[in-house]
Every structure is written in C-alpha cells, then in structure tokens.
C-alpha cells in the first residue's frame, strides 16, 4: 500500500485537474456562445420537404422569455399537446432574455411583456403579436377598507407613489371617498424591486396620466422610486403589503385574486371608477385601436371606454418574419391559433385575459401577409 501511494495520488490528481485545465485553456477564447446556442433551432436548418410536412406536425417548439405568462403557456402547451402531440419547451428566463434569444435565433419564438418598438422589429426582422392580457392592480392594506371600497384617481395614485401624499386621510383621498372613514395612518409605498414587465406597465401608466411622474421618474422595468420599499417578485410585493398596515403596492391581477389582496377602484379616461376584473381588462383591449398600431406596438394603459380598467398590458410573442422551415411555422401558427380560440377558457381559469375576437382575426391576417418561409407565404389552416 505504502509503495503504491505516489502513483495513486499522481493519477488521481491528474484526473481531478484535467477538466480544470481544459476550462482554463478554453477560457482564453472569448466565449460568445451562450448555453442555449446548440438547441435545435428552426432557422438555419435545411428546409424539410414540402409534401410530407403538410401532414406532419413539428414535434417540438422552443420558446423563451417572459415569466408572467409562463403558467398560461405551459397549461396551453399541455392541453394542446394531448390533442396534437406537440411538445413545447418554454424557458421563463425573463422578457429581456426572451428578446435576446429570438434575436440570436436560438429559439422558435420569444416572449416579452414589453412590446418592441416597430423600428426595432424592422431592424431585427421580427414580427410580434399579443397573446394574452394582464391587468396590473393597486392593492392596499388599510384597516376597514375592503376589496374595491377605496376609490383613487390617477393624480392621487401618482401623488402617493411620488411621496407627495403621505397619509391615508389626505384631503385628496377624502374628496374621492366621501362616506369612507380613512385612518390617519402613514402610507407605506411598496414596489417591485426586481426588473419586471409589471413595473414597466405600472410606471408607463403613471407617466401617461401624470406629467410630474414623467418628469421625475419615467417608465421602465425598474426605475428610481422616490419613496417606499421593494419586494422581490409578485410574492415579495404581496407579502410586504399583507404585513404592513397602511401599505399600497401593485401586483398582477391573478396574484391579487389568489392572495385575496384588497384592490382599489381607479378612475379611467372616461372619468368612470372601475374595479379590476377580466371584463374590464378585455374592455381595454377591445377599445384599443390595434388596426392602427404598427407591429402591434400597443400599450393598453389609459385606454378609452366607460368600463375600461386603465392599467393593463398585453404579453407578446416574437417570431422571425423570414422563417426557414414552413412546417415548423405552420405548427407555431396552429398552436397559437388554438390558444386564442380553444385556449381562451383555460386562460380565464388561470385569471389571464384572452384576446378579443377582432384582435385574433387581425393577427391571423398579418400572419398570412407578413410571415414567409423561403419567400412564400405560409398556408396553415
């Protein structure tokens, strides 16, 4: 045993360190390639023969991006897969990541909560369409105020988040809520600390309705908040609001429902106070003029309509205009069309808002006119 020791250790240590040296050696080359680079990607693959592809269903779609619609996409994929044998591999890596991945063509589609500007779409050769609608809801924790009891105007909401309105019994809030007893408590402002599409929708809304907000803060996935504290993710915000007396925060609608957080009524563009509900989000989408939105660049904040909830946004899918594989593109279209129509009930079950009929038809029309494979439009119905 004693005499074996040198060999044993020698071999062992060489074996242990070999991968390390390989890594060191390769580290010299600047590693541009991200891990997802070798995933099966639709573009760039040799075109599959046309005739059999007509019958064949592409077995695997890959997508990456926004976390907000992740539960919905996986539920849709599961239900659709049982009917049609399609597998969807969706990675919820965040909207920014989704956009980066589709640009690099490492996935079949990207998903983002923040719509891409038409000129950027043009530059990257991308096409985007809305998939579902999410409402963002201010939620509160004020003693004696039940769900939907408190009414807020855009100016007051803005004042609270700017730190100008500090107490719940502030004159401005009292004026909107005659008959309610408001406590003389400090308002604890809560926001999302992590970069998120939810924050983008909320701050975009404040920027639209409140010039002071636009000047001082602006809209973004994360911004410089004048006051308050930040919770990580919807769960973080929900926990902070639940635990802090006098708190106000904003979360996805589904999250407010699941956690039974008391929401507020908001005054919309038409001057009506509305409660957050699937119907009032759909109203926002219906009144929006999608026809005149190039590249479906549309934010559903502050839309007209008496029953419209004013803080909402769609979540988007991004695909390349020039597809390499007609069969795969057909599979993508069939899947998303199924989601729009047969998947609408499933979406409502999960508290997501399905797209209204007029938008679905418009999307199908644009698919037919703008997406090509090998220069030819794709027949998918």
């Amino acid at each position, binding site marked *: 045993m004693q005499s074996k020791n040198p060999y044993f250790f020698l071999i062992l*240590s060489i074996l242990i*360190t070999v991968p390390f040296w390989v890594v060191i050696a390769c580290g010299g080359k600047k590693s541009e390639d991200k891990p997802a680079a070798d995933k099966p990607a639709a573009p760039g693959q040799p075109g599959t023969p046309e005739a059999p592809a007509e019958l064949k269903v592409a077995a695997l779609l890959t997508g990456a991006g926004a976390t907000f619609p992740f539960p919905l996409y996986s539920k849709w994929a599961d239900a659709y897969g049982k009917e049609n044998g399609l597998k969807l591999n969706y990675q919820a890596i965040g909207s920014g990541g989704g956009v980066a991945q589709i640009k690099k063509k490492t996935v079949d589609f990207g998903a983002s909560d923040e719509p891409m500007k038409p000129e950027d779409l043009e530059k990257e050769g991308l096409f985007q369409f809305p998939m579902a609608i999410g409402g963002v809801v201010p939620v509160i924790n004020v003693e004696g105020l039940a769900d939907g009891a408190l009414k807020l105007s855009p100016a007051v909401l803005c004042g609270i988040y700017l730190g100008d309105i500090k107490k719940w019994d502030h004159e401005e809030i009292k004026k909107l809520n005659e008959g309610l007893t408001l406590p003389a408590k400090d308002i604890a402002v809560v926001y999302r600390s992590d970069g998120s599409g939810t924050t983008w929708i909320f701050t975009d809304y404040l920027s639209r309705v409140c010039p002071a907000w636009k000047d001082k803060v602006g809209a973004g996935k994360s911004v*410089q908040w004048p006051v*308050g*504290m930040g919770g990580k993710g919807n769960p973080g915000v929900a926990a902070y609001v639940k635990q802090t007396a006098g708190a106000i925060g904003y979360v996805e609608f589904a999250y407010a429902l699941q956690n039974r957080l008391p929401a507020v009524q908001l005054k919309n563009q038409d001057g009506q106070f509305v409660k957050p509900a699937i119907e009032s989000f759909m109203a926002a989408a219906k009144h929006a003029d999608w026809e005149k939105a190039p590249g479906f660049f549309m934010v559903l904040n502050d839309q007209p309509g008496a029953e419209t909830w004013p803080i909402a946004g769609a979540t988007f899918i991004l695909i390349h205009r020039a597809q390499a594989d007609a069969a795969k593109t057909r599979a993508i279209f069939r899947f998303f069309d199924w989601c729009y129509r047969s998947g609408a009930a499933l979406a409502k079950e999960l508290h997501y808002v399905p797209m209204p009929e007029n938008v679905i038809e418009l999307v199908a029309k644009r698919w037919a006119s703008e997406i090509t494979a090998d220069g030819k439009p794709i027949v998918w119905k």
Partner: protein
Amino acid sequence: MTLRRLANLWKAQTSFRKTSAFHRSADRAFRLLTLLCAVSTLLLVGAILWNLVENAWPSITRFGLGFVTSSQWNPVKSQYGAASSIYGTLVSTAIALILALPISVAIALFLTSYAPPWLARIVGTCVELLAAIPSIIYGMWGLFVFAPYMQKTVQPMLAKLPGPLFDGAPLGVGMLTAGIILALMILPFLTAVMRDVFSMTPPVLLESAAGMGSTSWEVTRKIAIPYGLRGLIGATFLGLGRAIGETMAVTFVIGNSHRISTSLFAPGNTIASTLANEFNEADSPLLEAALIELGLILFVITLIIQILAHLWLRSLQKRQAR
C-alpha cells in the same frame, strides 16, 4: 516569497530522499502538479478580476469615481451609482458580525469548556445542522415569519430608544432585519470553527492556569482566546465572507431601496441584492456594465478587508511576541 519557500522545501526534501529513480521522478511530477494547482488559483483570481474590469469598462469610463460616491440608481435616465449598495453591504455585514460574534464565542466556549460531553454533542450537531440550511430558506422565513415579528414586537420596543438609529415607521423589513438574518446565517459557521479552535488549546495550559487559582473567565480571557486568536479571526472572516456576499436572504428582507438612511429601520440594499434584483432584466449594456462594476467593487471590498485582517494579525503577533 511563497514561491522561494516552495522551491527551498522542494530542494530540501528531494536531497535526502532515498527512493528509486522512478519514485523520485513520480514524486517530482506530483510536486510539480501541486505547484500548478496552487498557481492556478492565482490565475483564476486574476482572470476573474480581469473579466470584471473588462465587462465593467463602459460603466467605469462613463461614471468614473462618481460611481462610488453617488447613490443615484436610475435605469430610466441611465444614471448609476453604488454608494447606497456599498453602504448597505457594509452596514448589514457589520450588524451581523456585532450580533453573531459574541454569541458564537459564547456558544463555542460553552461547548468546549463548560458543557457536559453529551450536551456538547447534541448542541454541536444542532449548530452544524443550522449551517446546512440553504439561504433561500432563511430568506423566506425572514420575510414571512421574522419580519412581522420585528414589525410588531422588536421595532416598537427599539423605537423607544433615543438617537437616529431607530427612527421611522416599523416596516418589519429593512437594514436591521437583514443584519439579524445575516447574523443567524453566519452564527453556525462561526461557532463550528471557533469550537474547533478552542478545543485545540493544550489542556496543560488551561489546567495550569486553573491550578494557579484563575477563575474560569480568566482562563478563557487570558489563555483560550489569546491562544486561538488566529483561528478566531479566521472564523470571523469566514463568517464575514458569507455575510458580505449573501444574496437571496438579504434581497427578501432588506426592502430594496437605493437610499442611504441613518435609521436602521429604513429599507436599504446591498451590492448582492442589487445584482439579484436587476441582472435578469438588465437589457441595456450600460446597466449590465454598472452591475458588473458593482460585482467588481464587492471583490475589491473583500480584498481590502482580507489585507487589513492580515496586517492587523501581524501587528497583534508582534505585540504578543514582545
């Protein structure tokens, strides 16, 4: 210096070895290998540093020294400053150490000198178990259980104390809560290492001190602690290293605000929590560079602390030698 010492060691050992030629060469190869491994850690640290600087360069050139002194963090206007994150990192770590250090020394002393062996075994195992809890669990527990307790019980009590440290509304989350959670997280590490340090004090020293009529406290203060000082400081830096880079648990309970406040009740942030919050959706190159520069600053802070610790240790040893 280290290299020369290594070389000397090598020479000395090879000269009086009487093994076969093959064994000698295998031995030499093995030594060379260990040397390469040792050097590779140096290379690795250098490579990390170089990489950080390279990727942070856009932010370094854009903001210069202002990055360290400004507490602006405005992704909309692309203005970034690290002051609040640096402040939060140092303060939360300091709170953690101030709370955890005396407690862990006490636990370690109890385990090695006072506890009956069966109890020491049980408590020792529990401490090691605590060390194995993942940090996300501390974060969740901190957010859902500890923060409400802080808000309802601890903070109203502390608020009665005078001074600016405990001003403001009791929010539950904030700098103090983060510091306490960090203290809980590093406590088992500190305790486990300190226990080992104390148990290495030669019994003959302790017994002679006791034999000369010293009280237990005197034995501890004058024999056990000075004897194990090096190890104790080592343990402290192990804990400090964990606290300064802790990410998830802190992100959950610190309140994530880019503002510097004298009150420990106020929400704040740390370098690690800012990274955890912003990196996922950092789609502008400048934001990414700024975040990487934050990482670089954390790296430098750790380096400075290590150097200071070594200097302090050396001066301490000199004083003791005299």
